[in-house]
């Protein structure tokens, strides 16, 4: 496995950082793929779960002293709970009404967090640096390799869950719902319940990504972990690679993250936004030329067309 | 008898699915012709290919001797083909008057718009009675009349009507039949789709019968009316 050996070959932190970002965004997009790609529900509020994950583990760590690993699990639980409470009414909507409703939920949650003084409000949370490196504290300052492997683990977990879903009854139900809700219901699929389950899985994985992020950056605030732009970026990564396929979201991350980092590194210091100019143009070109996502280039096509 | 419209060898796909196989039909100027066949036989698909809403994968459509196979729908209107879709398909949130008025949107038809509109009011008094009502508030029969008027506004040479009597009460059906005859007498050739065999053949002079995407039978109404084959197709036994 090339991915495992990568840190040994590339000892510089920056390529490792890019790989970590690829893994993280790959995992987030894979999580989104479960609800959107397989289950066909185009939710644009993933940042809510990401933020919940980040805040739960961070607050449990700074206030209670709980290891971020346990906090991560706490975040997953909370995110799943929130996903069920929010999902239940919102899943009644279809199409653009649904997508906009998820955006609305995301914006409301972000505003509430900003105004919630007890958890720092707009000031966010600083996580204290603890030395030496400790697995328990989820902090590694001497080498990025640890973060690398944790992110890789997260990605593999997301891919594994997706793989498992693909191969189980659940996956068949999800895809049936994406293709035709009525036909699925006629075959005895409890559409509302399955959608909630898909969202729960997606939310849980996304929350883990949030906890990882908080430990990686050691600083979180509502602007950086709850923004709409994150929800949209997650969606873009998956769509770019190809939704409804196991590897598509990862491929999207593997292309988009280096592209973003690369153009910024090479052109970003000019203050002229040339990097974003190229980035925007590329997105348009890809969506016109390869509307089913880059996976189409490999002859793998999944019915993105039916995810309407 | 000159052939106003002729279609031959039409293979038509809807999405990935083939619906017509070498379908054909021909209409002479001045005729009333019925397209018959059970549900799903491909009647509407055939008509949509004639009006240009669908592009056949193979085959030709000729109008007045010219090939129009590749022409988009809006250009065929200018040539004199009018098509009233199944279930009327009025613009639901436009008024009756606006609906009818739009029937003469094509450049060629605009000059005579006012006179043609007056003619339509004569033919369908309902139009002036309901002129400012939104189309979706009309009853089925009223909608069908407005749809016919809209279709006639472009002063077509060929009027194609998809299931004009669908879901209508017998009294309304009779009125409509009367109108269709009058329109025909005014020189408009008519092709229509109908499920009720006898009703269809009592209006039409000839009929085509489609089954499972193929034209399997055609002939004068009197012949078809007593055909055992027709009975087999529609009633079984």
């Amino acid at each position: 496995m090339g991915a495992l050996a990568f840190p040994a070959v590339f000892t510089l932190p920056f390529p490792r950082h890019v790989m970590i970002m690829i893994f993280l965004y790959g995992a987030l997009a894979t999580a989104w793929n479960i609800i959107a790609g397989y289950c066909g529900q185009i939710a644009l509020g993933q940042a809510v779960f990401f933020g919940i994950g980040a805040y739960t583990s961070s607050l449990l760590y700074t206030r209670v002293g709980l290891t971020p690993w346990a906090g991560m699990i706490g975040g997953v639980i909370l995110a799943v709970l929130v996903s069920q409470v929010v999902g239940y009414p919102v899943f009644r909507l279809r199409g653009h009404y649904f997508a906009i409703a998820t955006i609305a939920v995301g914006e409301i949650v972000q505003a509430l967090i900003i105004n919630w003084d007890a958890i720092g409000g707009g000031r966010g949370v600083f996580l204290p640096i603890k030395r030496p490196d400790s697995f328990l504290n989820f902090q590694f300052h001497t080498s990025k390799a640890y973060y690398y492997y944790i992110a890789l683990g997260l990605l593999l977990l997301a891919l594994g869950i997706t793989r498992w879903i693909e191969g189980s009854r659940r996956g068949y139900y999800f895809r049936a719902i994406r293709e035709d809700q009525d036909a699925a219901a006629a075959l005895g699929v409890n559409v509302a319940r399955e959608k909630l389950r898909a969202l729960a899985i997606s939310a849980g994985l996304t929350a883990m990504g949030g906890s990882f992020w908080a430990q990686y950056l050691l600083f979180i605030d509502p602007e950086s972990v709850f923004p709409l732009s994150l929800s949209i970026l997650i969606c873009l990564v998956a769509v770019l690679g190809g939704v409804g396929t196991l590897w598509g979201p990862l491929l999207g991350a593997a292309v988009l993250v280096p592209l973003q980092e690369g153009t910024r590194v090479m052109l970003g210091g000019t203050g002229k936004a040339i990097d974003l100019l190229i980035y925007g143009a590329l997105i348009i070109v890809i969506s016109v030329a390869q509307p089913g996502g880059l996976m189409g280039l490999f002859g793998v096509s999944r019915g993105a067309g039916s995810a309407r | 008898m000159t052939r106003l419209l002729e279609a031959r060898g039409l293979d038509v796909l809807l999405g990935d699915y083939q619906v017509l196989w070498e379908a054909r039909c021909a209409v002479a100027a001045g005729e009333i012709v019925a397209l018959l066949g059970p549900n799903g036989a491909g009647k509407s698909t055939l008509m949509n290919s004639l009006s240009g809403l669908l592009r056949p994968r193979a085959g030709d459509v000729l109008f007045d001797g010219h090939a129009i196979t590749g022409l988009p729908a809006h250009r065929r209107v200018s040539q004199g083909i009018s098509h009233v879709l199944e279930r009327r398909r009025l613009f639901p949130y436009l008024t009756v008057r606006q609906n009818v008025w739009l029937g003469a949107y094509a450049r060629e038809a605009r000059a005579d718009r006012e006179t043609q509109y007056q003619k339509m009011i004569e033919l369908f008094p309902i139009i002036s009675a309901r002129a400012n009502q939104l189309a979706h508030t009309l009853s089925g029969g009223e909608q069908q009349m407005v749809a016919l008027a809209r279709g006639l506004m472009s002063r077509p040479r060929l009027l194609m009507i998809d299931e004009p009597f669908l879901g209508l009460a017998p009294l309304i059906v009779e009125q409509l039949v009367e109108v269709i005859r009058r329109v025909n007498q005014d020189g408009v050739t008519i092709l229509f789709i109908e499920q009720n065999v006898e009703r269809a053949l009592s209006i039409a002079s000839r009929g085509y019968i489609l089954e499972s995407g193929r034209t399997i039978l055609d002939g004068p109404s009197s012949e078809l009316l007593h055909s055992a084959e027709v009975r087999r197709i529609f009633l079984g036994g």
Partner: protein
Amino acid sequence: MHRFATSLLAVFLVFAIVAAAPSGAVAQSKEIVIGVLYPMTGPTAQAGVDNKPVIEIGTDIANGVTDLPFPFYQKLKGMPGLKGAKIRLVFADHQGKPELGQAEAERLITQEKVHAIVGCWHSGVTATASQVAERHGIPFLNPESSSPGLHRRGLKWFFRTSPHDEHFTQAMFDFFRDFEKKRGVKIKTAGLTYDGTLFGADSGKIMKELAKKSGVDVTLDLQYKLQSTSLQSEVQRLKAANPDVWMPTSYQTDAILFVRTAKELDYNAKMVMAQDAGHISPDFVQAVGRDAEGTMSRAPFNTDLIDKRPVAKALNALYTKKHGKELYDFPARSFTGYMTLLDAINRAGSTDPEQIRQALVATNIPGDQLIMTWDGIKFDENGQNTHVKAIIIQLQGGKFYTVWPWDSATRDVIYPIPAWKDRK
């Protein structure tokens, strides 16, 4: 699938090779490499775009290309401590995003092999980027972020030359007290407006704490959303509460909209005391300068001091020539921080991080050599400059003038601010 996996691996590898290669030449001992990390794109890109030229001027001074004829700067000419080593700058863009700040800091340190980092303007980005520097043991000089929490994280490698919001806010209340004495007016109630960012929320919090200490009653406490599409209701509420002083904390966007809305809704604040940022940016002054007449702000620097301070005047000439703009608060702070770093490197006589750090700790720059009105630069154990001094400035006739402390003042305070109907 196999073909796919192979291709994916290929993409990774090609990328990794590209990313691993340092973009510049390999660092030589004769070169001092400094990473400059600012927002160059995004909503606050102006800060980075305006700071870049002043950093370049500072570099030119040290590299002997440009002359600033004052002892402190002469001393740095040609970096004698390192026997004429040349300074090379590496600029990076963080777009105002903490995660990019972290990534770029990491890249600067490990790939560009910078010996020190200057940045990042946004407090949130400074927070993450400085942690990276801490991990790698690279000096991080922060010339401008004002979030008070930043220097309290127990970082060894973090140095801040600028005052932070507590200093600044304290100055406001000190001013109120002085002003009450001087003019015999009462400033008893305050109305606060601030946005939900780290900067806004911090400022709001400190203002409330200090108001309590100083016996000022906060009668209106409004947090609003960054980049609001309308601020009508906010201004209506200010108008209804009508506090003795309105104390806004805003970025440029909302600051501009606040003034315009206040004008439209005829809100006549008697006194406006802003927390820097948006309210003193050139955009703000250019856009609504006349309408914002009488707006006061805390600041570490003001353009009218340029004429009072020869150092500032000389630098301003260079800056205007290079960038076509007058020197103002952001580049002034950026320059001060940057030169402090260069001074430390020069004294360290080495690019070794630990030696630079020790030199920074020992920094003691006298106030008269600065373009700022501070008492000088000297760091405490947290890396915070203790010799800072904030000034209070006021917009008069479309320009900011220093009005406090009284001894630095170039103009007298306008109070109360004339009502809209009485203007012009």
